[in-house]
């Protein structure tokens, strides 16, 4: 079996955005998500000697992050009673009718799947972005995800607009290729 090695010095560049996306989708708060990613890196560093090399670096970090997310929810639910799941079947208690049937998911509805699929799509895109050369991923992220204007990016990176569009073009074609392999073909 292929063995992997840890390269903590590359963690932030390679996995920070990926882990951040994962965390944001679970805690829905950017600040907390950022802290969780940071904690994940620290925890990874601490237990680096327990890393057996059977899983890929990213898989291993995600596993740690999942623990951190659980810990986070434990912490905010630590007051007794809060952790219990309380659910009332109906807002009006004495209503007649199919009280249970109304609560279950509609098997024909695809809305719920949509959300999960979109989240997976987001991670797939993020994974592809992390494979791009540094400059391409930087420009693409600034333009597409942060939605910065062309002028601002040019000023910040010291490039001219036609340069920027060529970089964007290369990034987009590479990403499309990558998604073709890792997601449904587009």
């Amino acid at each position, binding site marked *: 079996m292929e063995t992997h090695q840890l390269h903590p010095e590359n963690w*932030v560049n390679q996995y920070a955005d990926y882990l*951040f*996306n994962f965390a944001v989708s679970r805690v829905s708060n950017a600040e907390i998500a950022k802290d969780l*990613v940071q904690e994940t890196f*620290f925890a990874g560093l601490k237990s680096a000697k327990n890393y057996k090399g059977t899983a890929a670096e990213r898989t291993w970090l995600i596993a740690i992050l999942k623990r951190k997310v659980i810990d986070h929810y434990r912490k905010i639910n630590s007051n007794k009673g809060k952790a219990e799941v309380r659910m009332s079947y109906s807002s009006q208690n004495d209503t007649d009718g199919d009280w249970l049937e109304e609560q279950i998911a509609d098997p024909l509805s695809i809305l719920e799947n949509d959300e999960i699929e979109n*989240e997976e799509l987001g991670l797939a*895109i993020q994974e592809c972005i992390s494979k791009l050369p540094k400059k391409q991923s*930087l420009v693409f992220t600034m333009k*597409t995800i942060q939605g910065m204007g062309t002028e601002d990016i040019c000023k910040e990176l010291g490039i001219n607009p036609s340069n920027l569009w060529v970089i964007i073009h290369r990034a987009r074609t590479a*990403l499309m290729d990558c998604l073709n392999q890792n997601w449904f073909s587009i």
Partner: protein
Amino acid sequence: MISCDEAAIICNKKQYKEATFIEKIKLVMHLFICKTCSRFSKKNAEFTSLCEKAPLHCLTENDKVIMKKDLQGKI
């Protein structure tokens, strides 16, 4: 008539709604005669809609620099 390279650049600008009116006309005329570019243009638009559909978040460069520094201190 514009070249395929130019058409591709305009097509990308269009994805970010930054193509001018003249550019759009040039693109449409090029797409009319060029099969390869129309295919690319279609895929490019699909990719844009995928990016919009996916909940993409990212850390700012600043955050990453701080993170790197903190991590470096512990290595």
